[in-house]
């Protein structure tokens, strides 16, 4: 959990992912399409990956990955990102980081 908190406070846009997760890949592509270069943390390749996965699940997302943080706050998983984007609320959040 500490590693997560540290990462998200240091970097503007952080996406926790797994290298095998194609839905995570889709979210990352979307952010890149919007002109943002998110910091991607592949938890399946991280030595503390297991704890991070547990911590992310505890945060309440239906799947531990993808987990998107903007400005230190949890935005959510794929569902939340898509809803935000279609309602036009995602881009304003990303403005500082484009």
């Amino acid at each position, binding site marked *: 959990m500490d590693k997560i908190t540290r990462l998200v406070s240091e970097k503007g846009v952080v996406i926790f992912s797994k290298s*095998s*997760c*194609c*839905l995570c*890949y*889709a*979210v990352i*592509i*979307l952010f890149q*399409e*919007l002109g943002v270069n998110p910091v991607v943390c592949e938890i399946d390749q991280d030595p503390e990956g297991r704890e991070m996965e547990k911590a992310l699940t505890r945060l309440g997302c239906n*799947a531990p990955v993808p987990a998107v943080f903007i400005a230190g706050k949890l935005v959510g998983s*794929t*569902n939340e990102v*898509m*809803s935000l*984007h*279609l*309602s*036009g609320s*995602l*881009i304003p959040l990303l403005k500082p980081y484009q």
Partner: protein
Amino acid sequence: MELHPIMSSKGMNSPSAQFVTPSRLGIYEPIHQLGTWGGNIKSNGNPSTSTPMIVEVDTKLDTQSEDTSHGTFPPSNKYEQEASKPVDKIQRRLAQNREAARKSRLRKKAYVQQLESSRLKLVQLEQELERDRQQGLYMGGGVEGSQIGFSGPVNSGIAAFEMEYGHWVEEQNRQICELRSALQAHISDIELHILVEGGMSHYFELFRLKSAAAKDDVFYVMSGMWKTAAERFFFWIGGFRPSELLKVLHPHLDTLTDSQFMDVNNLRQSCQQAEDALSQGMDKLQSTLADTVAAGQLVEGGCIPRIPTAMEKLEALVSFVNQADHLRQETLQQMFRILTTRQAARGLLALGEYFQRLRALSSIWATRPREPA
């Protein structure tokens, strides 16, 4: 022929056959009706499995009727019965009528049950036939994947989904008619709003049905076999493209205000971006699955560690179908948030008619006259 046992038992009870009065003859009519039930089944010469069943029922009832006859009347002097208190005759006739009616009801019930199970079997056979027919049309390359789930026994979850989808389409057609008349009749915005809400909920209901079906058999949902051919042509991850939805609505939105126009454009752009992102995710899923399967075949003894990974990939497919449906739902919701009630009603009508026309096109195409080979 079933009449004979009954008649002979009557013969035993009333030794003097000359006392067969018209009223006595009247008794036999209900029994004759029993003959009709059996007769219908036997006379068509069909060696159906129902026949022995009904005959069995008869024999059982016959014995019972004999018992009833014995039970109703005092075992002593039969001649005294004949000498006749009319009350006895009437009672006897009533008892026989009741008995005959009961037999008739039981026979009818057995017959109906047999019809019902035949009907179910027929529906199942029709479904299998349709599937095999479409499989024949589609199996150009003979892909193994399409055989799993099509030529095998019908999955009950999928069969249920197909039936529910059939109902969904019927309800959809009804709603489209209602919407059309409502718009022509210039009903109030409040009433129109109810129709629009109903239409939206109906689409959301479809996404719910699909989600359950995807858990059951994601390949089936992805195949689009539950939709008509023309709809399948436009398929994208288990359904219509969200961007296509907006394209269909566009020409019908001629009365947009400036801010609406801007909102619609933004929605179109973000919808397209989300769709592209999911498409790229799907491409990655396909290529990694192919790699996994290919590697599994090449490496001897390495198959087993690969199989769980391939299974994980297939699980991911369910997530993709759900995400695609989520995108469809969000696009619909956003669109109708931007529009006024009247614009939304016109949009829903346009969308519904579009899919109706695609379905009609599929029918016309399927039944077009073809040159003999």
